């Protein structure tokens, strides 16, 4: 494998890193004045990475770079495209949000770029070392982003909590990685798989469990979900939207690649763990949300709930299951972006956020368009047809049934009804109750654009995407199993 091929395959990451470094220097020189221009440049860089990604896919280029450290395949392209799209959306909505508080600085887009590089490495990693570097790169920028609103105590608190717990999780992963390395003698995915296929000692089992536990933290699956509501509530809303979308996609993709790659021969070793985490996430995510008054905390629990459904696809451990995970992620990204951007737009004339149920009661009379968009988002998250969120649940449950896990599917779907309760409460507050406070102020066009596109995707029109989306996801999932 020549260096030129390796460099070509990692082109998106290299391009983004260079863009990040250059923009970092520009920020250092120009200060806050150029923050907006830097954001535009960062968005352009991400669009460049996105199109490069697609061109790789169209050319059918797939292969391993740097001697098996990094893999560019259909799966990586699918996951990275989602990550880039989500990052772009979070960059587009950020300036107007922070401007209202006079807190916007050029570091924000730069951190997002580095985060994107880290996430790209996470999904492409085929070696435990690359995986860890990508994970840390993404996590470290996330810690800073969480506390980006420096003058806000809650934001700093969120950053600190995220850092302490995230570092713990990283430590757990690293411990698991060291065990896996110790028992297999290699950090390469294929090598680990080969080593474990002949001999899978109990110690290696511990390694697998530790790695999975650490990854469960990153995707906020129960029982490692406790940080999510606090961090989501405290972090500035654009950052929360980002946390709930892009890094989650990357972490789930990484988990899927690990489960089917190095541990692909030991399905029975991790399947039970995933099943437990899936059902527990669905139930805890649903029950935890019921008592919440704060909208961001509620959506945090909703994301825990959604991770449960994603894990059901993973638990199936079949190509159909992995394809379902990808389809779910696609829909989930748009639902999450849409609902957090809608929350972002909920601020009164003084710029104060409308953050609780009391603040949005009667929203359908004070701001009908926003209320209808949120209604679509909530019914979609609840998985009620004909909204597109139903399709995500449909494919994961279909995969579970095809893998002969009917009981899992039945319990999971029955538990989803608990979740429906708080989603329809959202609708009830907006549509059935009388307004208590003045409605939200006029939102900027950039927010409406992101919200409008998300609503369009999750509307019934989204079903027209299913042949295209299903095809891409199938190709991506096959790449995963072909390599393994």
């Amino acid at each position, binding site marked *: 494998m020549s260096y030129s091929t390796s460099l070509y395959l990692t082109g998106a990451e290299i391009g983004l890193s260079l863009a990040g470094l250059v923009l970092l220097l520009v920020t250092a020189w120009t200060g806050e004045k150029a923050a907006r221009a830097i954001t535009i440049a960062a968005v352009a860089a991400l669009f460049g990475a996105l199109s490069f990604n697609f061109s790789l896919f169209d050319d059918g280029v797939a292969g391993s770079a740097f001697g098996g450290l990094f893999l560019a395949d259909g799966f990586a392209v699918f996951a990275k495209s989602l990550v880039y799209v989500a990052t772009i959306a979070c960059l587009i909505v950020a300036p107007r949000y922070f401007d209202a508080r006079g807190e916007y600085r050029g570091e924000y887009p730069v951190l997002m770029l580095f985060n994107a590089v880290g996430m790209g490495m996470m999904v492409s990693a085929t070696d435990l070392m690359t995986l860890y570097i990508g994970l840390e790169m993404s996590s470290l920028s996330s810690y800073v982003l969480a506390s980006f609103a420096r003058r806000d105590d809650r934001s700093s608190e969120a950053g600190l909590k995220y850092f302490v717990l995230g570092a713990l999780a990283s430590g757990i992963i690293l411990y698991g990685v060291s065990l896996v390395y110790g028992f297999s003698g290699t950090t390469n995915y294929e090598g680990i798989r080969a080593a474990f296929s002949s001999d899978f000692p109990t110690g290696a089992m511990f390694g697998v469990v530790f790695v999975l536990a650490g990854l469960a933290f990153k995707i906020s699956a129960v029982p490692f979900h406790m940080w999510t509501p606090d961090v989501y509530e405290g972090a500035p809303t654009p950052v929360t939207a980002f946390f709930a979308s892009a890094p989650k996609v990357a972490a789930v993709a990484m988990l899927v690649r690990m489960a089917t790659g190095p541990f692909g021969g030991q399905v029975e070793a991790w399947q039970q763990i995933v099943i437990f985490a899936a059902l527990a996430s669905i139930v805890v995510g649903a029950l935890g949300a019921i008592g919440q008054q704060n909208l961001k905390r509620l959506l945090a629990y909703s994301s825990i709930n959604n991770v449960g459904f994603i894990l059901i696809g993973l638990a199936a451990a079949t190509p159909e299951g992995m394809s379902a995970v990808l389809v779910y992620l696609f829909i989930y990204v748009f639902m999450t972006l849409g609902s957090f951007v809608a929350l972002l737009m909920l601020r009164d004339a003084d710029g104060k956020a409308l953050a609780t149920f009391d603040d949005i009661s009667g929203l359908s009379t004070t701001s009908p368009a926003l209320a209808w968009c949120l209604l679509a988002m909530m019914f979609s998250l609840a998985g009620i047809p*004909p909204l597109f969120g139903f399709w995500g649940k449909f494919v994961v*449950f279909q995969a579970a049934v095809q893998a002969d896990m009917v009981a899992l*599917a039945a319990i999971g779907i029955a538990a989803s009804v608990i979740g429906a309760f708080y989603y329809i409460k959202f609708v009830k507050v907006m549509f059935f109750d009388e307004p208590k406070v003045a409605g939200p102020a006029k939102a900027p066009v950039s927010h409406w654009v992101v919200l409008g596109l998300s609503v369009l995707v999750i509307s019934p029109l989204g079903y027209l995407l299913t042949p295209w989306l299903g095809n891409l996801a199938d190709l991506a999932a096959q790449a995963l199993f072909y390599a393994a």
Partner: protein
Amino acid sequence: MEFPILSLMLAVPLVAAIACLFVNASTARMAALLATLIDLALGVLLWLNYDIGGAQWQFTERAQIFAGFQYALGIDGIALMLIMLSVFLMPICILASWDSITKRVGEYMAAFLLMEVLMIGVFAAQDLFLFYIFFEAGLIPMYLIIGVWGGDNRIYASYKFFLYTLLGSVLMLIAMLWMVNEAGTTEIPALMQYDFPVDAQLWLWLAFFASFAVKMPMWPVHTWLPDAHVQAPTAGSVILAGVLLKLGGYGFIRFSLPMFPDASADLAWVIFALSMVAVIYTSLVALVQEDMKKLIAYSSVAHMAIVTVGLFAFNVQGLEGAMMVMLGHGLVSGALFLCVGVIYDRLHTREIARYGGLSINMPKYALFFLLFTMASIGLPGTSNFVGEFLALAGIYEVSTFVTLVCTTGIILGAGYMLYLYRRVAFGLQKNADAAAMPDLNAREWAMLAPIAAAVLWMGIYPESFLAPMRQDIAALETRLASVAPRYDSALEVGAPRTQAANYVEPSHEGEGEH
């Protein structure tokens, strides 16, 4: 490719629904009325062009625009009749809300038009998952209709309606996924011919039962219905009673019976037991209601129990009777809710005791109300008589005991309906405000007269309605023939005697002794 009339029937209200969101109140009303009347005209066209005795599935449309399922429409006689019921009731619902809905009219009309799309879609869908999407999507507009425009306790009722029906139907989705995985097709006509393994049928049947029993609703999962009915606006109650309750019966006749015949036969006793309890219990509950809408809601549960009993009789009379009860009940209970709505609009109370002697100041109203009361009881010459008679005749061929209990329900039905009518329309005019209410206006005439005509038509010449369904019901009976239960009171054919009953053995001993 023939003209896609079913798609057009879906498209017209859908376009009107979107338009209603953006226009003012009076335009929204006109647009909604126009769209529903166009759909009614299309429905009549559909009926006229339906080839009785022709292919089982007509007006079929297929389009492969989704992954995993397809856009497949098509109807048989059963679906045709239920679509006709929906498009017939819809303009009447819009008229019923003409004056009584004053806030957020555009959104209200949009929700109703969306309901119409989804109801037609449910009956016309020929793909299992397309059916599920239409079936489940109805929750959203109905939740909004009850919650935004409902009565005082609307929030509780809307939650209960939503969560009850959602919990009922999600398990059905898992069963559907399993069936498609097993049979390898999502086409409903193909699945109706597929023989699922007998031991799996039990679970599949139960999963579908969970959904349809809630929709129907059957005792003991009927409790959402009285709440939803009482709190919903008049037109919402009409749609609930007229069409949405029929989804349960349609589900049994389209899915449970033809797809899982063995399980249906094995578990028919469950249906019989629950239906018998429902008939007696809800009739007694209806007898003591103080609230008119609640009384009619409970009577709906009792009538639906006759439907389920007829369906699980596994014979032509039972099935035809069940369908006729569904159609007749759709018209009659809808009309009764409209009658309640007429006086509710004037006095703003549903309490029976607040009325009295209405036949004096509202004679025309009293006449219509009497007709629908009699139809609800099942008087010969009205729609419900045909259905109830057939259904009970069908079940009599299976179980005389079930027939005995269910027929008692008819008597109780006469009790609570006549008692209701006496308290509202006869007697003294004890309340001055009720006595001052004006008689029907032109709009209310336009709502009630067509239903009255249909009720009489169905009662006097039911053949118009039975003819399109006959072939489909015969096909269903053939499918069920191998598992049909035996008649519990069949006469035993004994061995013939060799001699007459009055034959006396001749004795020879004493002969000639004298």
